């Protein structure tokens, strides 16, 4: 007992440091955010803030653009998470094949978007998909491949603008999934594949029956991170479409930002962010429950 306390005292400073940091940078902002959501909040003179009760939350449910933003946020997750995951694992498998040469080169190429700045690649996509014939993509479609007669106003229509945003997000995310799986693939014992080969299993079957099940912990980790990332997407929409046309490509995040920093309606923005936080919690928590429990033993 005495020894336990002594040990505890010894590690306490280290624990305390982390705990204090968490309090300052995570817990305090979290609680303050919830607090702000009940006020018409004045950032400059918080003492003049007006208590509104649940009014901001009621407004959330009556705001038509919230539903558009929610739709876009969910669609964003539904589209980009599976695509990033599928392409990521595919690329990882292909790069991992024995006969593929220049592995480092391919890893670099696919990982490059991940380490590039969001701002840079967002502007890049904005130029690629510029309206009229001045955009590279329109040039290719119309003047080069003659697939269309008229250039597409990519960013002026809800769905074409969303496609641009999804494409960017998938392209930028694939490399991260690939690296994760490449690492996980190293841990699969070669003997399992050899045994399967002797039993006559080939490519696709070994993938489904050996690789995927053994990758399970990694898959859970990757999916949860991708989903959280999808709900937190912001910069690509903020920079490429600014939520337009007609507020139809807003994500919950960009819509919240607009209320906070363009309208200075911090209370309403905080209410939106609390709701978004709850949404992320529900999604990821249920996932943790469904496939977080099993452990694999070789």
């Amino acid at each position, binding site marked *: 007992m005495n020894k336990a306390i002594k040990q505890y005292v010894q590690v306490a400073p280290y624990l305390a440091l982390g705990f204090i940091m968490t309090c300052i940078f995570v817990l305090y902002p979290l609680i303050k955010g919830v607090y702000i959501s009940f006020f018409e909040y004045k950032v400059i003179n918080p003492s*003049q803030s007006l208590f509104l009760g649940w009014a901001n939350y009621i407004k959330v449910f009556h705001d038509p653009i919230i539903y558009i933003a929610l739709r876009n946020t969910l669609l964003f997750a539904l589209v980009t998470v599976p695509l990033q995951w599928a392409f990521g694992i595919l690329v990882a498998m292909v790069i991992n094949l024995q006969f593929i040469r220049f592995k480092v080169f391919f890893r670099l190429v696919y990982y490059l978007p991940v380490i590039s700045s969001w701002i840079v690649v967002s502007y890049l996509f904005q130029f690629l998909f510029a309206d*009229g014939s001045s955009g590279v993509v329109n040039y290719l479609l119309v003047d080069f491949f003659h697939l269309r007669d008229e250039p597409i106003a990519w960013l002026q229509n809800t769905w074409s603008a969303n496609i641009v945003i999804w494409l960017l997000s998938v392209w930028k995310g694939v490399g991260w999934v690939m690296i994760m799986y490449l690492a996980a693939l190293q841990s699969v014992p070669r003997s399992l594949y050899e045994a399967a080969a002797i039993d006559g299993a080939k490519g696709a079957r070994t993938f489904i029956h050996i690789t995927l099940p053994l990758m399970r912990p990694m898959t859970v980790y990757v999916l949860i991170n991708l989903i959280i990332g999808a709900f937190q997407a912001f910069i690509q929409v903020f920079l490429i479409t600014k939520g337009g046309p007609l507020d139809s490509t807003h994500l919950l995040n960009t819509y919240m930002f607009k209320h906070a*920093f*363009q309208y200075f309606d911090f209370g309403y923005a905080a209410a939106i962010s609390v709701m978004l936080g709850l949404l992320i919690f529900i999604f990821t928590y249920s996932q943790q429950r469904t496939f977080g429990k099993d452990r694999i033993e070789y």
Partner: protein
Amino acid sequence: MRITKRWLPKLLLVLLIATVFLAACGNNEGNTPAAEEKPVAAPVDKKEVEPAPAAEPPKPVTVEFWHAFGEGEEKVLLEEVIPKFNEQYPHITIQGTRMPTENLDQQVITAAAGGAVPDVMRMDNTWVPRMAKEGVLQAVDNFADFNKVVADSFDGPMATNYYNGNYYGVPLDTNTKIAIYSKELLAEAGATEAPKTIDELVSLARKLKENGKFGITIGGPDFWNMPPWFWTLGGTITDDKYTVATGHLNSEASIKALETIVSWNDEGLLAPPILGGQPGTWEGLRGEEGKPASYMMINDGPWFFSILGDAVKDTMIPAKMPSGPDGKSHSIIGGQDMVFFNGAKQPEAAWTFTQFMLSEEIQVLMAIKTGAIPTNKNAAQADALKDVYYLDEYVAEMETAMARTPSPNANQIGDVFGKAFEKALRKDATPKEALDQAATEIDALLK
């Protein structure tokens, strides 16, 4: 090492002596004119100034000044305005910071929340009520000689500083937008001079359409680009007191104005920028690399001429906007105010600087060099302005120009307005539906 050790003390000594001498020289040069002149600085806070004998040199102060001047304007500020200011007030150093225009309002709020505000800022005049409401700004009604500034300034720009019974700034410059025509395309449409009425403009646009070019360019459906056309065509946004939109924004005349604009778009008379298309207004008017000009006219401010300078002097015609049903054109008033922050360290010196910026001399200088229209009445009448070939048209347009709805919710109101017009143009709603809904939403924002 040894050499360094031996030399170092001597070098330091020499440097020290040099610094003392240079500093002394600097001080002498700086202080002499100040001492000779009247009691320096604007004695705003009289309690502080009175006990001190007038001859005592004032303490050197630094004024933090934020602005979003363009490159050319900043050059005039740094190379001409501030040196002139320092001749009169050598003890006040102006520390100007050129801010990016993108997301500037957020930066201001963040700075205010964090207590890192400048003393004075040149701010877009539509922001002033909003910033005043947030408690970012000081009321200026009690500043020394404030009434003189009010008397010297035009009423419209002055009014942009008013919020809830007080003034929160003073107008520095103002502007409006006129029609700018390309001589070449005007000739292609069969005209030698700018059209006087909207009807004339539309018939020119129809002729140009046959050549695949555009006669009318509206920069977008937003609160800055659309109102000049909407107002000129007879539309209104609110009552004169800016209290209600219903009955004005969705009045018959307003609906008709929007219907006209939508019909132009349907007919293919409006250039692509109306819905965010390319090329942009300036590129379309002047032609881009390898592409000829395709827009006959745009609607823009004096910066078009001051930025492009000689490149457009002989190819473009500045003209008043074509007039609408009431025989007049109604363009939009823009401009910048000088505002003072709560928590400013040197409000008195900042006010002195601001008074200087509003003086006739500097207002005329800025007008000639940058095309900024003076807010000082005397400066606007100055003979020197006649030499700037494009300013006449702007000053004339100002007479019938109108201001955007001043409100702490100006941003939301602008968004609602822009969305209504975009919806109608994109056929998501009829003009009447769009304006009815917008009027209701703006009513709520005006309360």
